[in-house]
């Protein structure tokens, strides 16, 4: 009998406690202001190429940080490697919007079971004109030194035959290119390759110290993982040197 009474009373008391504390539990009113004032072009990229244009085929959740510092969280995003543009699925009317890159400073893309990928706009020299152009680059390491990689697709000269029903067409193949960029302690953004020589020369005024470090630690730099590790080691070393110049 007593047990039955307890079973019956418990939900009642819980409900009583919850209703009495509604004011205390009320979330902040920011939830009312969920409009996203992100401008962009309603645009579907051309499908006339063979190969994947987007970094991920599906929409992934992520955050957008605008140039003015406004943060829009949990948006559905896709990064187009061919156009170097960020696409956003507007939540209300599901427009496929290529965001106005002039407003975007940074964005993140959540990946299953891992740390979100962070992309930032960095100035990259155009190899033909020599002028700086802002490109989205994935941040691989952030400290006093910063390491970025750009994921780009370019239209190659090769093509392949694609049959769609009765139609046969030649489609140009998209080729992936990756470029690494290091922001050194002088603030310069320098392109580099995963090699010891390129790594040392990208360090600017710290190149001699980094050369000593690489020699002392016998660092090998031949791929992305080793490059990230080398930047990490160099960053820690430069920090320790700045604290204790006698090192």
């Amino acid at each position: 009998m007593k047990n039955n009474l307890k079973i019956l009373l418990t939900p009642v008391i819980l409900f009583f406690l919850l209703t009495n504390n509604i004011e205390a539990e009320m979330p902040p009113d920011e939830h009312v202001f969920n409009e996203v004032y992100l401008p962009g072009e309603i645009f579907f990229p051309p499908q006339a190429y063979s190969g994947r244009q987007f970094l991920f085929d599906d929409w992934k959740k992520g955050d957008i940080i605008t140039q003015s510092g406004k943060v829009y969280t949990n948006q559905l995003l896709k990064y187009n490697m061919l156009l170097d543009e960020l696409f956003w699925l507007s939540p209300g009317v599901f427009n496929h919007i290529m965001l106005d890159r002039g407003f975007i400073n940074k964005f993140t893309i959540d990946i299953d079971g891992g740390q979100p990928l962070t992309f930032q706009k960095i100035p990259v020299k155009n190899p033909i004109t020599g002028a700086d152009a802002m490109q989205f680059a994935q941040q691989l390491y952030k400290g006093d030194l910063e390491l970025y990689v750009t994921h780009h697709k370019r239209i190659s000269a090769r093509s392949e035959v694609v049959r769609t029903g009765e139609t046969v067409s030649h489609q140009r193949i998209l080729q992936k290119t990756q470029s690494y960029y290091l922001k050194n302690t002088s603030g310069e953004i320098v392109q580099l390759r995963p090699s010891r020589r390129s790594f040392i020369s990208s360090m600017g005024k710290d190149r001699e110290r980094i050369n000593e470090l690489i020699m002392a630690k016998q660092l090998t730099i031949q791929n992305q993982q080793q490059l990230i590790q080398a930047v990490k080691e160099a960053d820690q070393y430069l920090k320790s040197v700045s604290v204790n110049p006698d090192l």
Partner: protein
Amino acid sequence: MIHSSTSNILSKAPGSSITRPFMPKPKSCRGLLLKKAAGVMALFAFLFFFTENVGALNGDDFSENCNEVVSVVTDRDIYIAGESMFFNSGIFHHKTQAQSKIMNLVLLDKNHQAIYETSGRLNNNSYASSIYIEDTLQTGFYQLVGFTNYLRNQPQECYGHKHVYIVNRFDKEISHIKQVREDTSTSIPTLDSGRVHNVLSHEYQKTNKEQTITIKPAKTVVDLREKMDVHIRVNDSTFKAGIYSVSVSPVHAFFQQNQPPDKTFAVEKSPQNKHNRKFLTETASVIFSGRVWDKALKQYKPNVSVVLTTPDTIASLMYTKTNQDGRFFFLLNDYYLGKEVFLSFRDFSNHDHSLDIQLDNRYENTAEYHPPRYDFRPQTRDYVLTSQEVIRAVKAYSIDLVDTITTDKWQNFAYKVYSTPDHTVIPSEYEPLDDFMEISRELLYPVRSRHQDEGYSIRLLNEREDFAYFDNPPAIFLDGLLLHKANQRVMDLNSPQIDRIETKNTRWAVGDLAFDGVVSIFLTDDEYRDYTYFLNGKNVQTTQLKPNTRLMQPKYNKQENPRHHKPDLRQLLYWSPGINGLSDDFEFSFYTSDLEGNYRITIKGMLPDGRVIEHHKDFIVKPAP
């Protein structure tokens, strides 16, 4: 705890239906099970009713009635029109997770008319600023009321109220003060005196100086322009957690000690609106709100897109949709504050002519203000007459005692429609053309404008897809304001009137709003003001947040500069608002001015439980022999 109190309630209700379901139950008896369920429901209803009324039973407890409590303190009680009134509005938060960051203040006259309205950002739970009292104000009692947007859902007893008496600078009759009653306590008190009152119960409680706060000035008689050190000691730890303000000003600038508290309510408590809040908590910045009224259906209309634009040299846009009550809210960042904004509807059609935008008045104050019947000291009249002359001299010398404290802005940016246009045309770089149609034909190939039977149409060339003109009109911005369609006035714009035209020739979206291109026309002057009549919607000035201000306090060094050429006519010698929590000892110093007389050091504060504490100590300023 609640469980045990519930048991007590049940035990004190003999014979009630609540206790019945808990009688022994025969096995497998369905009828009794149903009775038991009914009993539980009755118990639940009783508990719900009981808990909803707890606040009413303990009406004197702030934490029950007010989730936020506001206090308003001024540097003095009596002012002369033409000077500045310094105030501090402090806030204590109870229960709410979302804490208000914006404070509103309204100065009401005896007719309950708002004389002055202002808002400011809370810093460390205080907003300390000043109000310039206009010369034109009539002599009489006024009330300064402080409240947050959230508090507009709550009883007015949670608001902060402060009575002040303002005398017109040219009023030599001063009728109120003329009819002064005989007052026996005319001598200047020389000991500490203080009081604590419970604002809700309207009761004073005399404080014992040993138990509360003591004020110790370094001297009781001070020379002109001499430095004065003051030491305040808090004897009772319960008084440490409060929001305090300290002022030093003439003794007769205050009401008498035996006056009733500042919160005088002539109306009943306004009903609580716990579960259906109309006014949101301003946790970051000003919330601009209103409702959309359907004049045809005579009801508030939900799900209507309301667009907010503001005149500028860029096109920017915010939008929102009305909720089920037809309400809309815009969270304005600093860019949009203190600006003229235009509200219109996105989906404009003939039907929408029936829609009307009703804006909320954030300073609306429903409680009726009844000025108090305060007594004045006989010396107050002389003080007021002298002060009128002092203010006249202050104005003649253009002495400004208010110092503005600049703080960082919160998100000071516009929600731009685009970063870079596809095409820009500056008509002044070409031969002058007579109207927009000619300009578009000769200078703007991606824009096609036509005169049709019903009016005018503008279409943009779709440069991304098929190089054909869009079927639907673009978004047209005139000096940053969204127009619903092109009209005669736009078409009449000629080259000298237009500074530049920008276009975006793709299907463009801002969030959920999509347009077949964008045309932005920027004019050479403020002519958009003549065009407001064809904007479907309302134009309104948004709230400007007034920055915190402080009293400018000079420093004198008699050895180096014994006589400064400029007179020092400060009546308010010191003002330190918004001291959040007092330590055991609080020390400060100030310099006296050129005005001799009896002065008072006052410390006023509000405690978290709603009690207001006030202590003072008097001293004399006179020239050294």
